[in-house]
């Protein structure tokens, strides 16, 4: 093609990024990599190596060690050995290392970007402009957190040794999201990269050697799912952090159930991309390129469901098709493309299977007629219409460049469709109406909401999901806190055996028979099964009967809580007033409750009086916090703000311990409702009359029906029903390790947020434990709402 031809055609021509430096780095390692453990590269035998490929041309890049349980054990031991000194190094000492890492990433960003693009198949534009930039930013930001840790995070301690398993879609970025906060908080790390994409993690290890990070602080063990399983199952790991599929996340969660390993999971999504008729449609179409054709759609928060207002549906689809016809697909190192290769042929198979299934279910598949590379693992950008809400392509995470469209009529219907999913990771909202934007954002069940944009990320702004998209956040203080625990948690004693009263006689006193029922939907309700069980005093006398709840009572209680959804949207001032009123009305009945506590627990009156007074104080604390546990306003590096809002978890099941029956119930339920949650509480079986005595207090305190529900009976049995209920969003349970394991396993299916004592004793009289931010955090989800702004032409400068 002559210059004149080029002048005539005005085509782009090839624009390959130079890969020489990255290839030289691979060659310098003999294209063979062992694990990085205790600051050293471990030699590997031939038998345990696997190949890693460049999906864009299917060439082998290097051979990598398959980590065994023994390798994982060596890495965990190295991390354990290094941890005390790393923690003791102090905030400033750790900050210096994190800063050095950030600088190294910036200085060598080109080689990392190329390596990542080769290994993953994603475009060099993305690895250069996004992955590496955000990774460096993450280490800078967390160097800052390390520096401030000693003063700002007093009262919290690191978990110790953290096991981290990261996915293949953003290998280097996910590494930084995991390692930076872990190290800042004083943990040491064993990280397993995904087997398709280990190279940037190995480059990272190489770099750590150069900055002299103390041996064992970061250990990298490569391998496939078996290596990951060994890390998950290792007994000496204190915390696990996983990013990946919901399916694997559930396996991990069940596997650690009953242990006291802390866990955060960042899982899949089917995120809605909502376009209203008053949006800038061309910009919304362009946003889709960043939403679903970013990283070939292999993005957990990809905007894969397009919800478009019916009045503009056809115009929008026409514009999308026109835009798709302009997408350029090519080798990952080409600087003139929008999309490149999928990570692996198996991923392409999955996408093909789901799209075929969607078609079989009646959807219309459209793909633009654009040039596709002849070799390598590619899948064309795909638009799916006529799908309806039940189609597999509308419901399942495809993890590919496939957009499924559905229309809605009104804002309310748009939000309902958006929330019509098991997932809850992210959402985009396009409208030029600020009232609409700010009204709908809190209604969306998603950890991240982008207004007039998509896929914004920043180290200062938390990222993570609701529902089956997992729990825990990455980025921001909320992300850092996932790598810390309250200091008291490190010292919790084992749960003491609870002495059960020995019944002596079954005859009630001569007072009028008082029948304790359930408390459901603001009313006292008889047990569905029509049965009661005896409750004995500590001395063995019959104290009374309590209703024997069953699964239907739980069902009814959850229905009642569901109907009380207005509570979360009521004002914090109102919630505070009601909780103060509860305290006022409870105080009126001090004598009665103190006597009841003496009767049931057998404790001295002075002790129970103290429990009562503390309970009143807890109510005051919860009321006090109701209008003070505010969110934050982040200022990420853009013209805009991100509002970090503390939202209620939703419906919480609270299964109270078999001690401190009034204090524990109040310490758990009061902050839960203060934050706007609705509660189904299960009192201790043999102390349940303390809870049933509260009914009248609740009734006289203006607590709206359904906000607090109490079901008595066999607590473990009832707690398991709650844990398995898909409309319950969180469960708190205090019991021995076996009982907690059962709860956690059941809670996994719909990814409830859980707080489990795992056989440890919580003394609710301890003020550090019995109230405060750590409880409020468990009662809330952080939602980050990104709001870019600006309208003054010229960037608003100079006025």
């Amino acid at each position, binding site marked *: 093609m*002559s*210059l*004149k031809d*080029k*002048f005539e055609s*005005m*085509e*782009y*021509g*090839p*624009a390959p990024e130079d890969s020489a430096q990255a290839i030289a780095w691979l060659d310098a390692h003999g294209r063979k990599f062992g694990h990085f453990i205790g600051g050293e590269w471990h030699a590997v035998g031939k038998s345990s190596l696997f190949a890693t490929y460049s999906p864009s041309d299917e060439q082998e890049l290097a051979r990598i060690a398959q980590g065994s349980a023994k390798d994982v054990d060596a890495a965990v031991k190295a991390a354990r050995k290094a941890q005390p000194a790393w923690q003791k190094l102090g905030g400033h000492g750790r900050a210096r290392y994190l800063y050095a890492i950030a600088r190294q990433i910036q200085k060598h960003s080109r080689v990392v970007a190329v390596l990542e693009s080769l290994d993953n198949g994603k475009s060099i*534009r993305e690895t*250069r*402009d996004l992955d590496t930039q955000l990774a460096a930013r993450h280490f800078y930001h967390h160097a800052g957190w390390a520096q401030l840790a000693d003063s700002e995070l007093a009262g919290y301690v690191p978990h110790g040794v953290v096991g981290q398993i990261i996915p293949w879609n953003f290998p280097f970025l996910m590494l930084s999201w995991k390692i930076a906060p872990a190290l800042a908080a004083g943990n040491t790390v064993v990280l397993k990269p995904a087997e398709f994409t280990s190279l940037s993690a190995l480059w990272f290890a190489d770099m750590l050697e150069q900055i002299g990070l103390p041996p064992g602080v970061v250990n990298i063990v490569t391998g496939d799912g078996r290596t990951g399983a060994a890390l998950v199952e290792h007994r000496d790991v204190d915390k696990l952090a996983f990013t990946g599929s919901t399916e694997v996340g559930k396996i991990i969660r069940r596997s650690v159930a009953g242990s006291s390993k802390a866990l955060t999971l960042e899982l899949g999504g089917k995120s809605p991309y909502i376009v209203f008729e*008053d*949006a*800038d*449609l*061309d*910009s*919304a179409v*362009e*946003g889709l390129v*960043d939403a679903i054709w970013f990283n070939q759609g292999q993005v957990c928060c990809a905007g894969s469901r397009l919800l478009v207002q019916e009045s503009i549906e056809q115009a929008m689809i026409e514009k999308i098709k026109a835009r798709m016809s*302009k997408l*350029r697909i090519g080798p990952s190192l080409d*600087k*003139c*493309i*929008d999309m490149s290769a999928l990570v692996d042929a198996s991923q392409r198979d999955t996408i093909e299977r789901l799209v075929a299934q969607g078609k079989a279910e009646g959807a219309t598949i459209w793909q633009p007629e654009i040039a596709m590379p002849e070799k390598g693992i590619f899948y064309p950008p795909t638009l799916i219409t006529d799908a309806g809400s039940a189609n597999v392509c509308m419901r399942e995470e495809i993890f590919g460049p496939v957009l499924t469209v559905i229309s809605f009529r009104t804002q309310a219907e748009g939000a309902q469709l958006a929330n019509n999913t098991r997932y809850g990771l992210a959402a985009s909202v*396009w409208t*030029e109406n600020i009232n609409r934007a700010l009204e709908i954002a809190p209604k969306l069940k998603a950890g991240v909401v982008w207004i*007039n*944009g998509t896929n914004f990320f920043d180290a200062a702004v938390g990222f993570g999901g609701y529902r089956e998209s997992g729990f825990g956040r990455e980025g921001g203080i909320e992300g850092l806190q996932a790598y810390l625990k309250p200091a008291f948690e490190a010292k919790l004693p084992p749960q003491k055996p609870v002495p059960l009263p020995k019944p002596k006689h079954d005859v009630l006193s001569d007072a009028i028979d008082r029948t304790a029922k359930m408390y459901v939907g603001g009313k006292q309700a008889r047990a569905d099964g029509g049965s009661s069980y005896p409750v004995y005093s500590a001395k063995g006398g019959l104290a009374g009967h309590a209703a024997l709840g069953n699964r239907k009572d739980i069902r009814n209680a959850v229905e009642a809580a569901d109907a009380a959804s207005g509570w979360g949207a009521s004002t914090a001032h109102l919630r505070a007033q009601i909780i103060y009123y509860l305290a006022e009305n409870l105080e009126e009945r001090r004598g009665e409750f103190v006597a009841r506590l003496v009767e049931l627990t057998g404790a001295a009156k002075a002790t129970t009086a103290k429990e009562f007074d503390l309970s009143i104080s807890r109510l005051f604390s919860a009321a006090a916090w109701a209008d003070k546990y505010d969110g934050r306003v982040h200022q990420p590096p*853009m*013209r*805009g703000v991100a509002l970090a809002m503390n939202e209620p978890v939703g419906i919480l099941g609270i299964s109270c311990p078999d001690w401190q029956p009034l204090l524990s119930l109040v310490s758990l339920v009061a902050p839960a409702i203060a934050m706007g949650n609705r509660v189904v509480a299960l009192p201790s079986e043999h102390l349940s009359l303390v809870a049933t005595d509260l009914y009248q207090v609740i009734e006289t305190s203006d607590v709206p029906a359904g906000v607090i529900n109490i079901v008595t009976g066999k607590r473990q049995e009832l707690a398991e029903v709650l844990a398995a209920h898909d409309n319950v969003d969180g469960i708190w349970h205090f019991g021995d390790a076996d009982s907690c394991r059962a709860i956690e396993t059941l809670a996994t299916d719909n990814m409830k947020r859980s707080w489990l004592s795992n056989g440890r004793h919580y003394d609710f009289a301890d003020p550090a434990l019995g109230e405060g931010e750590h409880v409020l955090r468990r009662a809330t989800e952080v939602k980050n709402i990104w709001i*870019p*702004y*600006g*309208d*003054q*032409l*010229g960037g608003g400068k100079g006025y």
Partner: protein
Amino acid sequence: MNDVTPHRLRNSGIQFDPALVDAQRINMSAVERRATSLGGRRTVKKEWQVAWMLRAISMIDLTTLQGDDTPGRVRRLCAKALNPLDPAIKAALGIADMPLTVGAVCVYHSMVEAAVEALRGSQVPVAAVSTGFPAGLAPMETRLQEIRASVAAGAREIDIVVTRNLVLNQRWGELYEEVQAFCEAAGSARLKAIIAVGELGSLTNVARASMVAMMAGADFIKTSTGMESSNATLPVSLVMMRQIREFQRLTGQKVAFKPAGGIRTAKDAVAYLIMVKEELGDEWLNSDMFRFGASGLLNDLERQIEFHATGRYSASYRHAMA
């Protein structure tokens, strides 16, 4: 000289439709993101880059709009317009026989005659800025008279300015009538409507003014006079290109685009052409449908092209002065 402009290059306009004006919504942050990220998504290298820079030369409205313009100065500019690239460089690139001129020469009315004379026998048209350029606040009759006079003097393109007041006060019907009157006065000359983006305050106003000018029959929409404090930018151009695209979707008519002011480097020029290719398509990548309003741009294009021809970084003084 007053050749009839081919029909395909004319926009017959449509009836004024206020609903279409109101429907335009622009999100500035999103527009800026697209404008910024496009540079990372598209690039041209090596000989393709040379081809694109040559194309950029062919799209320049080589301009002088100074109070001290003289016929002699204008003749020099026209000479450069006819031979914008050193023949030795063309030879080195193997395109010695490729005809290459700029898109037009753009002057004030009083210099039209000199320019027409200097360009006689070539295909390069003379464009006249008009209607009380740059503020456009002369009496309407004076403005119309200026258009007619320039056309009579041989200008084949007329760059008019809109009354910003009509935009800022959302008086779209009157804006429509104004531009329509200008189009009528221009007769067979192609009309470029300058909306003066730097004085409109918001991208929404830019979009709406663009749409009204096209409804009224403007053949080109143009960003700026070059005299405002801010002129052509990629975000502003993106908004205007998308309006052109929308107008074509609605009417089937293709309106040309001219960013002006502030485009000084070859790199900038290529970025604009990439945006044109992506947002409007190849049909706009020629001097009929796209122009750069620029005076300094040509020199940088010459220097960058020379670098590709010789491998040596060039200096301004080595290229014939415009």
